[in-house]
């Protein structure tokens, strides 16, 4: 009798907990210069493949960090007003997104579950292109490593220039080494720029893992 009562109470509690279960469907995760980054923005960016969260770790945190950086760059880009990206380039990126997702139904589901529209996605892609254009213009052709730097890089990174167990001759690998150094320098410069943007902009992060 006692056991049956306990079972009933347990069942009732279970039902009640199901009934009371509430999921956070959206919230503000961060504000960057007054602009909001919502949970649905983060989910959309990850599910649409605009960013690629790591397989391990906190996907939400990682994606949020990328979106904060993107917004910081966008604020700077808007200040300088680069030329409008070509419509065909926006179309191409949208097609890339479609092929990443695989089917129209999946895209519809993502749109429905995140509250974004196709027009908003186009604007997102457009802004990405504007950021790319700005970074290319600002940091594109600035970094020209010296011959000594290229030789040093080639010596210090033999694995990068080894194919089928054989180290490529320096003359053959020179252009790749130069490109690798330029990319490193550019990434460092962009990091520095971004860190400056972050110092100058009010960034409030409201996402605390586990909360």
């Amino acid at each position, binding site marked *: 009798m006692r056991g049956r009562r306990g079972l009933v109470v347990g069942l009732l509690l279970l039902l009640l907990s199901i*009934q*009371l*279960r*509430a*999921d*956070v*469907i*959206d*919230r*503000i995760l961060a*504000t960057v210069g*007054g602009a*909001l980054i*919502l*949970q*649905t*923005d*983060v*989910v959309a960016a*990850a*599910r649409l*493949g*605009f*960013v*690629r*969260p*790591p*397989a*391990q770790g906190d*996907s*939400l945190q*990682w*994606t949020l*960090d990328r979106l904060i*950086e993107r917004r910081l760059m966008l604020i700077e880009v808007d200040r300088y007003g680069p030329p409008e990206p070509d419509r065909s380039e926006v179309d191409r990126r949208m097609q890339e997104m479609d092929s*990443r*997702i695989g089917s129209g139904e999946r895209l519809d*589901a993502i749109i*429905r*579950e*995140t*509250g*974004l*529209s196709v*027009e*908003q996605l186009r*604007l*997102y892609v457009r802004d*990405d292109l504007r*950021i*790319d254009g700005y*970074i*290319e213009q600002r940091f594109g052709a600035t970094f020209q490593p010296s011959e000594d730097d290229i030789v040093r890089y080639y010596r210090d990174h033999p694995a990068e220039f080894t194919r089928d167990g054989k180290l490529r001759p320096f003359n053959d690998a020179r252009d790749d080494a130069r490109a690798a150094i330029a*990319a490193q320098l550019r*990434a460092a410069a*962009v*990091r520095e720029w*971004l860190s400056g943007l972050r110092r100058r902009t009010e960034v*409030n992060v*409201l996402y605390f893992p586990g909360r």
Partner: protein
Amino acid sequence: MGLLLAFALLVSQGQPPAGPPLAGQGLPSTADYTGRMIVRAELSIEGQVSSDSTLVGILETRPGLQLSMAAVRDTIAHLWSLGRFQEISVSASAVEGGVALRYEVVPVHSVRRIAFRGNLGLGESGVRRAVTDGFGAAPPASRAASIAEMLQGHYFDRGYLAAAIRPVVEEVHDPEGTILTFEIEAGARAAVRRVTVVGDPGEPKDSFLREIEADPGRPYQRVEVQSRLAGYLEQLRRGGRYEAQGSHRIALQTDDGRSVDLTVNIERGPEVVVRYEGDALPKDRLEELVPVRNEGSVDVDILEDSERRIVAYLNQQGYWKASATATRREQDGRVEIVFTVRRGVQYRIAGGPQVTGNAFVPAEQIRLALDTLKEGDVFVAANLDAASAQIRGIYLRRGFGRIKVQSAANELNPSPSGEGRIQPVISITEGSLMRITDVTFSGNKALSTAQLGTRLAIAPGQPYFEPQVIQDRENILSEYLNRGFSTAAVTLVPAVVEDTGVNITFEIVEGPQSIVDHVLVVGNVRTDSRVIEREIQLRTGEPLSLDALFETRRRLGALGLFRRIRITEIPHGDTERRDIVITVEEAPSTTVGYGGGLELSQRLASGAEGAAEERFELAPRGFFELGRRNIGGKNRSANLYTRLSLRADDDQSGPGGRFGFPEYRVVGTYREPKTFGWNADVTITAALEQGVRSTFKFARKGINAEILRRLSPQIRVSARYTFGTTRTFDEVLTEQEQATIDRIFPQVRLSAFSASIARDTRDDVLDPARGFFLSSEGSIAARTLGGQVGFIRSYLQGQMYRRLPVGKRVIFAGRVALGVADGFPRPVRVVAPDGTVTEQTIEDLPASERFFAGGDTTMRGFALDSVGAPQTISSAGFPRGGNGLVLLNAELRVPVWGDVGAAFFVDGGNVFERVTQIDLGNLLAAVGLGIRYKSPFGPLRFDVGFKVDRREIGGRLESPRAFHFSFGQAF
């Protein structure tokens, strides 16, 4: 994603390797809820469900609708836009029949107090100052981490290399707020252990290190060392070592942060001596012409710049062929810079400039560009170039796109005194007149070519006039901005066709269109939201127009209710919809004003034999004002204004009573804007006043009600009803000289309706520089309305202000005014001095309603009210006023120096007894000049006017001049 994705990967050093492109597993999902019927939607503020209609009203997810995440996002954006919440989250739970939504918001907890605890190491006031300097006295709690980071740097700079700083945010309630505490463990301050000095400081290493506070054993303070080193370098530069350089860095820091090894680099550079040979330069200009000390360098670029500056300076003085050469000599660690300056002969312009080749533009217009090339002026080649450019501009503006203007300086034989002589020659090749052949647009999608065409003033066939084309481009751009295309760009591309035509293409990049989503008003506590909303020109669903934004701000400002108005656009994520948040800060409801002034004027007064005499009068005055605005939150206002003047009595002979308060004014005003929902303001005024005119004093009490409506920002119309009594007393005129009506009605009751219309385009009401003011007012008073006399009266005036295209900021101001009035006939019984009673019909206006002229705002060569045709002046010289008035004023306002200006004026006009006697050939005139001072309170004015023809009044010639000192312009 290209670069951006690559960048994202690059900046994520230390992160695990990237996963598959379609990662998203583990992220929150809303699939269980979207599309389901919303059964309940509530808003909870820190756990308490809110019924605030403003908040609940902006929830887009209403019961009965299907749950759309777009609506959820929009609602979050709206709530955030209010600026009241620092956190917003939305949770959903499945309930019977659908889904229940709960918006959980956390109000902004502003920081009420900042506290520090632990081992601070540094003084608390200095640490607090660092926080408030960087983040303000009440930073948002969300900035706590940034503040801690800043403090870390602050401590590092002061030798605490391993300080631990932890922010603690503690929320408190009732009232809401946050206490922001920084727990600080400063640790040990680092001491300097070893120092390596690279370079020669010019003195023993020990004393050098002591001077820059970097000697071993001393606590290390980066900021202090940096500042001391900068001082040391400055000292070296002052001693002529302009290229001295220095820096320091931490070479090694021990793990416990207790000591550092430093490297100090010091490069004294050579000792530099600058000498000048040849012709002397003014000593006070040397620092500016040769800025080696300021620049801290004597490199080749600086020296070449200095040479150019010296030559340009001498050229400006007319030394056309001046030269300057810098030579650098180095010897024994010293650098000697020698500037050899040769001024040569000073050149002057002989014979004026010679201009050839102009056929289309007449010589008189070309001459305007040659102002700096007058005969006898020193010759400055730059002026000749500027004149050529100006002439080129004249032609370009007229459509001569191929214009060529060449200039040369023809050197003539020197003058007998040895001065050089130059005749400037300007040769013009006009080329053909270019006309616009075609106007096209590209890139326009939202606006059709026909729509854009209506914004253009240019058209095919017209001469190509560049400023107009540029203006048209601006017009097109503003059309786009007013349609919400805030990033629109319009580029002008002119293409020459067969040398005589230009095809104009406006290349348009429209960008996205911003649409107004919600307009939210925040910050009004006392003010009724409807009062604000009716001034808002932005509408939900309409494009975000720039003009509407400006107009909204202007209208809200014009309400006079707010100390600050901020309009912010809040974007909705990546959409082009914008919430418009209007944040107002209400001004205090009660206003108190008081002040004082001094009036200096020339008035008529009775002289020894009763004749009119002009006297200076000094009248101190004070006012007090008490106002209450925004009554009931409806922008109604009530105001009480009182003014009192101290004046000398006319009769100065008796003992005591030499001064009194014959002038006072008490006015109570109640104003109700947008009365009864009309677009018009009603003002009710009750006034009690006593005043002094030249021939009488008056006491008036009355009430009037006025309704005023603005048809446009410039045009206003008003209607007014006035009821009051005016009593005149202390008349200077004898009974025989007085108008009959004044004798019969020493106290007269008036009941009148009046209407006026005015157009005001002046840029500044107190001190206008351009624009017009045109007004027309008509009044009718009648016995049937309850008054004792009847009349009609009209006053028309036009004022014009224009900046003249000569000199610097010279303003022409002009006024024409006409006043006409006529009394309605009224039979009265008149008792003669001998006691006989007669019936007469009078048609006069009461003295208080008649026109007078003369004084600081009408005719400045005359004392107050003293202007008038002979019929309006008594035998003793006192004015009686008249039914007709003509005023003509012209004034040039010329800036002289700083806030001081001069004015030259001509005033004309007269007062006539009857309208039928108005005679433009019988006007009095005065000329004069004055001084203006733009004080912080408005323009102050001193004028002296001279009568053109002095009249003989009462057997005496009137005074030739009159002085006036007052506030504000004459008109």
